[in-house]
């Protein structure tokens, strides 16, 4: 290797490193800003772009705001039920994505999963609104939960799929050879091995449901409004820094859940046998 080209390569590497650092800075700047500005004094009860001084008052303000608290309760409940549905159906889907005997079915299901992730949420939101209007189903908690499940199911399915891929297929075969019927092999042998992946998926689907804004914004009613929808609404009329205080609290809540999910996911990936390809 000639010296100049080595130097050039090192310079290229340094440039890439610089780019990476700028990217991370870019990604974290708004998060840091939002946290810092939740302590901003603001002026006349409104958030200001210039930082005017430190205060903790907005956290108390957010805590004492009844409509905000109500929105938090609705969000917690809706994402809880959404995560429950997503864990049950998403685990089935994630397993079928890898182990369904027919390749055609596997391909259809994986197409469906990716479609869930990429169809613009606005289109889904208005379609649901129309669907419920035509079928005369009243909007409420169940419709809200049903509306946000598809995304949560897709997230769960992809995480569980990763878990199934690390499972040794011979485990199932051994259970079958020892006389276990299929559902018992799955329930007593496969599911316990998938538990960390399923739990990580549950947390992530909870986070995604809690964070959902666009679909929820079409399905909320005056009495059923989620936290992101409430915050989004208040942003359009010059928000008070209390909105940022609430957002910062949500951020900490989310980070804790994501960190838990991450730890569980590590357990999944660290464990045992190499991926066994579906036949």
């Amino acid at each position, binding site marked *: *290797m000639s010296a100049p*080209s080595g130097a*050039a*390569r090192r310079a290229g*590497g340094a*440039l*890439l490193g610089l780019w*990476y650092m700028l*990217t*991370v800075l870019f*990604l974290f*700047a*708004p*998060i840091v*800003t*939002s946290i810092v500005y939740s302590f901003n004094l603001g002026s006349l009860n409104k958030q200001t*772009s*210039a930082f005017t001084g430190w205060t903790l008052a907005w956290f108390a303000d957010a805590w004492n705001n009844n409509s905000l608290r109500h929105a938090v309760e609705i969000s917690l409940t809706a994402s809880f039920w959404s995560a429950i549905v997503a864990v049950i159906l*998403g685990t*089935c*889907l994630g397993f*079928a994505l890898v182990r369904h*005997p027919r390749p055609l*079915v596997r391909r259809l*299901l994986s197409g*469906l999963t990716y479609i*869930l992730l990429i*169809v*613009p*949420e*606005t*289109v889904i*939101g*208005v*379609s*649901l609104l*129309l669907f419920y209007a*035509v079928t005369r189903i009243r909007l409420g908690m169940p419709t809200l939960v*049903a509306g946000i*499940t*598809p995304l949560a*199911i897709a997230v769960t399915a992809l995480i569980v799929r990763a878990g199934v891929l690390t499972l040794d297929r011979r485990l199932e075969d051994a259970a079958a050879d020892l*006389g276990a*019927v299929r*559902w*018992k092999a799955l329930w*007593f042998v496969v599911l316990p091995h998938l538990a960390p992946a399923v739990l990580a998926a549950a947390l*992530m689907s909870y986070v995604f449901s809690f*964070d959902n804004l666009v679909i929820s914004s*079409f399905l909320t009613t005056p009495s059923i409004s989620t936290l*992101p929808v409430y915050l*989004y609404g208040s*942003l*359009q009329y010059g*928000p008070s820094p209390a909105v940022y205080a609430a957002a*910062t609290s*949500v951020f900490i809540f*989310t*980070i804790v859940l994501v960190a838990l999910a991450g730890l569980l996911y590590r357990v999944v990936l660290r464990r045992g046998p190499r991926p066994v*390809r579906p036949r």
Partner: protein
Amino acid sequence: MADSTNSLVSKPAGRSPAAGRALDHLLAALPALWLLVVFVAPLGFTLVFSFGHSSFGGIKLGFTLDNYAQALSGFYLESFLRTIQFAVSGCILCLLVAYPAALFIARQPPTRRTPLLLLVLVPYFTSFLIRVMSWQIILARGGPAEFALNLLHLLNGPLDVLDTQTAVFIGLVYAYLPIAVVPIYLVLARIPQPLIEASRDLGGSALQTFWHVILPLSRPGLATAALLTGVPMLGELVIPVLLGGDKGVLMGMAISQQYLATQNYALGSAMAVLVLIAVAVMVALLVRLTRGFEEISA
């Protein structure tokens, strides 16, 4: 529990292949049926009603192409074309920013890659709304960006970026960057090192190696990243509303206005179907290029 373990041993006859297959079908059918009701059926309603006649505050079934004619003319056509233009350029910008970052991560020793990737990914898992609304402060007059740019002497005086297309692009790139990095990183990390060494040994410069070896091999990752970023951008609603002000309405906004304000459901449905067609075209163009990604990412 004890009973079932006993019967595990005592009933080997129970494992008929047909019964096993029935369970596999059930596992596939349960989520598929649910998604059919809460996801596919509503989209079907939108398709049907896009051909209906709009009446005041309601909709009458029928077959007319009037809604599409209206959605493809004047103001609505403009916002449709603008939306496609925004999604394509937003997606390209996103890939341009993501690629070098992904390349950097892939070139690190394996133990260091995961933390570096996580650092990029963590913001994606935090609240979307929080991340976007902070840009309102950052980009505002007298905000942190103005301060920083003046400090670096890149700008003298106030910064007028909020409520412009530039702000929308910053928001789009920002929101979708993490999911663009991941698929690109996955392909780059799987490129065999001997291939790169071979290119060097044959006298290829760093740039030539990149252009003739690394870049062509990263095609499936780039296409997957484009799929995950460009397609959802076609319906983006929140970013243009919060950062773009009222200039340059995009389809997401226009559709939601038809439903929530004007209540012309038929026209709104036609516009939603147009977005879905744009989605389908983009997916069809890109899916071809993602071939090979499944094997890599698994």
